[in-house]
């Protein structure tokens, strides 16, 4: 099996993209649109094939991973980049859940997108996204990773703006792309930094070797400023893609897209690529403790900030969006204390329970005919029991209830924070506080949606129905994942297969960084974590439980744009200032510089015209007078010739 070429994996979704794009284009003229059976079949087939291929590779992977170079990409003498793929433990885990969840969500979308005019187009984008994501995690060089990196950003743009008749959606999409672009520039510049010092090497094997060499040489200090610069730039790239402070504002707006997209791209896969990149470049980051501190702070701040923001949202998807940001903050905390394996583990479990939550929310929205405001929901437990169960399981997972997936991964992160040097306990305190808030807002979501009375009016109540099977099956599968995926690495139970898997990639870097481990009793930390979850739940029940009166929304459903500015907590204003600055700059350029240039041009033109008029003033418009004047000229010339010729 292992002698299969690696490029098969990205090839499948690529074929799917092309086929679906062709179907979409070909059927664009017809009224009815393409057959959903055929389109849907193709749409699910190719991600599934990719998943199968990944499983096949994963089962037979040698310890050191598989590296294959497909062909040369750029070779201009001094700089060379290949298109090559690297299937190592890290990309194996990422690929498994990317393709797996991708396939599940494709199946789910069959039901969710049923009857939409852009059915084929939607799946073409989804396949393109999977292709880009696979390239991102499978590539063996930074440059090719960047291809996937921008590719997923592009697909995110396309899918957020999928219902493009509404310009608000387009604006959200533009925002997502542009904010991501800012991060991407950080990525590019980071690559340039590294390329400068490493002799234009950008593939991971070479880079790691170089970084290890550099670490061993005593004079590492001299290279440190450049490494720090590169690290910061890469981290800017990560904050863009993973919606961390300060580039977090696009993710809540991105909920304008169809819900499966939010589940796949903006919860499970794409937004975690920043964490993936940190793990990939772990050898770089462990060399620069200063930057790592920044990473921890950003992670802590983001997790806390987004959790607070989540408390105030009424849109079910926005709550989940902020919760995603908050969870990503946890992952960056872990990465910041060099617990890369823990952060990847959290990525892994988070993918399951967050996807389950989003799909559940999608099912709720679907059953309520597009209603997203939680204040108009309630009491859905009885009407949609399967959805409710799935969401409640996932809820337990996200708040870290013992036994569920989130418990293992979050607990691990908290432990790693606590054991990190002297400042560890402070980190731990903030993270624990965040965990309590997480439990509160997630509890609020569950209570408002599934308990109490239905508040959406009778008209809507009759409409409520359970989602079709094509949507339920993936949800259930994910819920199972949300419960059991944590047992891949249950430290207390002695199951550490996840850590062992990742050890070849990040182990050495991690050990180098976390030399002085403080030993604590893991049981105590676990109890504290559980306590946080329980306290949060209790607070949520007290605040929102029972049949408390929930204030009805004043407006039926405020548009996305308005909501975004209300509670992204000031970062939208920061962005607005930057946008304003650029606009002012553009205005200055347009109205001042350009006008100046045009004015100068006009002045020169006017002078030319004036001179021309002046000259044509000599033109007497009478041939004879003209000739006469020329005769006078001849006289003068002759006189001059004579005078200077010495004749006179």
């Amino acid at each position: 099996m292992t002698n299969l070429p690696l490029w098969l994996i990205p090839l499948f979704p690529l074929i799917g993209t092309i086929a679906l794009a062709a179907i979409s284009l070909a059927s664009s003229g017809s009224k009815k649109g393409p057959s959903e059976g055929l389109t849907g079949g193709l749409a699910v087939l190719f991600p599934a094939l990719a998943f199968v291929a990944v499983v096949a590779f994963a089962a037979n992977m040698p310890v050191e991973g598989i590296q294959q170079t497909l062909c040369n990409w750029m070779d201009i003498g001094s700089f060379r980049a290949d298109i090559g793929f690297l299937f190592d433990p890290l990309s194996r885990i990422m690929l498994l859940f990317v393709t797996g969840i991708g396939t599940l969500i494709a199946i789910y979308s069959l039901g969710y997108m049923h009857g939409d005019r852009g059915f084929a187009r939607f799946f073409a984008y989804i396949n393109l996204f999977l292709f880009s994501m696979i390239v991102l995690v499978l590539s063996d060089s930074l440059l090719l990773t960047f291809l996937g990196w921008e590719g997923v950003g592009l697909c995110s743009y396309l899918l957020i703006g999928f219902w493009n008749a509404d310009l608000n959606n387009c604006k959200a999409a533009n925002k997502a792309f542009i904010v991501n672009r800012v991060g991407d520039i950080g990525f590019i510049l980071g690559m340039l930094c590294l390329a400068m010092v490493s002799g234009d090497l950008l593939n991971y094997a070479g880079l790691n070797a170089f970084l290890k060499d550099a670490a061993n040489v005593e004079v590492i200090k001299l290279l440190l400023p450049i490494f720090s610069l590169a690290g910061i730039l890469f981290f800017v790239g990560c904050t863009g893609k993973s919606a961390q402070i300060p580039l977090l504002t696009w993710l809540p707006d991105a909920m304008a897209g169809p819900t499966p997209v939010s589940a796949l791209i903006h919860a499970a896969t794409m937004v975690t690529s920043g964490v993936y990149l940190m793990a990939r470049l772990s050898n770089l980051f462990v060399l620069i403790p200063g930057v790592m501190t920044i990473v921890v702070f950003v992670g802590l701040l983001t997790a806390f900030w987004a959790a607070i923001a989540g408390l105030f949202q009424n849109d079910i998807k926005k709550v989940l969006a902020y919760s995603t940001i908050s969870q990503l903050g946890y992952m960056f905390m872990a990465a910041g204390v060099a617990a890369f394996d823990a952060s990847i583990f959290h990525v892994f479990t988070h993918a399951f329970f967050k996807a389950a939550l989003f799909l559940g929310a999608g099912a709720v929205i679907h059953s309520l005919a597009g209603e997203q405001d939680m204040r108009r929901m309630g009491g859905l437990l009885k009407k949609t029991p399967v959805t409710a169960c799935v969401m409640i399981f996932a809820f337990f997972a996200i708040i870290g209830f013992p036994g569920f997936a989130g418990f293992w991964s979050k607990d691990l992160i908290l432990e790693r924070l606590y054991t990190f040097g002297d400042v560890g306990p402070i980190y731990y305190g903030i993270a624990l506080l965040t965990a309590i808030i997480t439990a509160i807002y997630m509890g609020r979501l569950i209570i408002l949606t599934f308990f109490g009375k239905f508040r959406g009016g009778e008209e809507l109540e009759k409409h409520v129905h359970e989602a079709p099977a094509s949507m339920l099956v993936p949800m259930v599968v994910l819920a199972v994942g949300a419960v059991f995926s944590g047992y891949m690495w249950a430290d207390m139970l002695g199951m550490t297969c996840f850590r062992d898997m990742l050890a070849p990639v990040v182990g050495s870097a991690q050990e180098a960084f976390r030399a002085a481990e403080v030993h604590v009793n893991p049981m105590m930390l676990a109890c504290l974590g559980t306590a946080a979850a329980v306290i949060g739940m209790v607070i949520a029940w007290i605040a929102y439980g029972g049949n408390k009166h929930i204030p009805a929304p004043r407006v039926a459903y405020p548009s996305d744009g308005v909501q975004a500015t209300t509670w992204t907590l000031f970062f939208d204003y920061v962005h607005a200032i930057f946008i304003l600055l650029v606009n002012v700059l553009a205005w200055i350029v347009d109205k001042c510089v350009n006008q100046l240039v045009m004015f100068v041009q006009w002045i020169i033109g006017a002078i030319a015209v004036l001179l021309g008029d002046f000259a044509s003033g000599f033109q007497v418009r009478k041939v004879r007078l003209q000739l006469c004047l020329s005769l006078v000229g001849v006289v003068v010339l002759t006189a001059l010739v004579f005078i200077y010729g010495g004749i006179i």
Partner: protein
Amino acid sequence: MELQAIYVQILALVLFSIGILTAISRRNMFFVLMGVELALNAVNLSFIGFSKTFAGDLSVAGQIVPLFTIAVAAAEACVGLAMVILIFRNQESVDTDNYSGMKG
């Protein structure tokens, strides 16, 4: 009192001046043409007058140039008169001041 070369040149100069005067100061198209012919003739005379101041072979050159001048003048008159006819048909005037179609 022999015939001096300078006399010929002075005659040529006088004729040339009269030719130029006619060509420029008269407004009738025909006078313009005639003035040009007169000036050309004066130049021919000047050529011949000077050619006679050289010896042998050189003097011939000065006589041959007027020959060509005359031929060119013939061509010029031919075309020029045809143009006069054309313009006259269009404008019904031989006054050069009326020919201002290309006034800038």
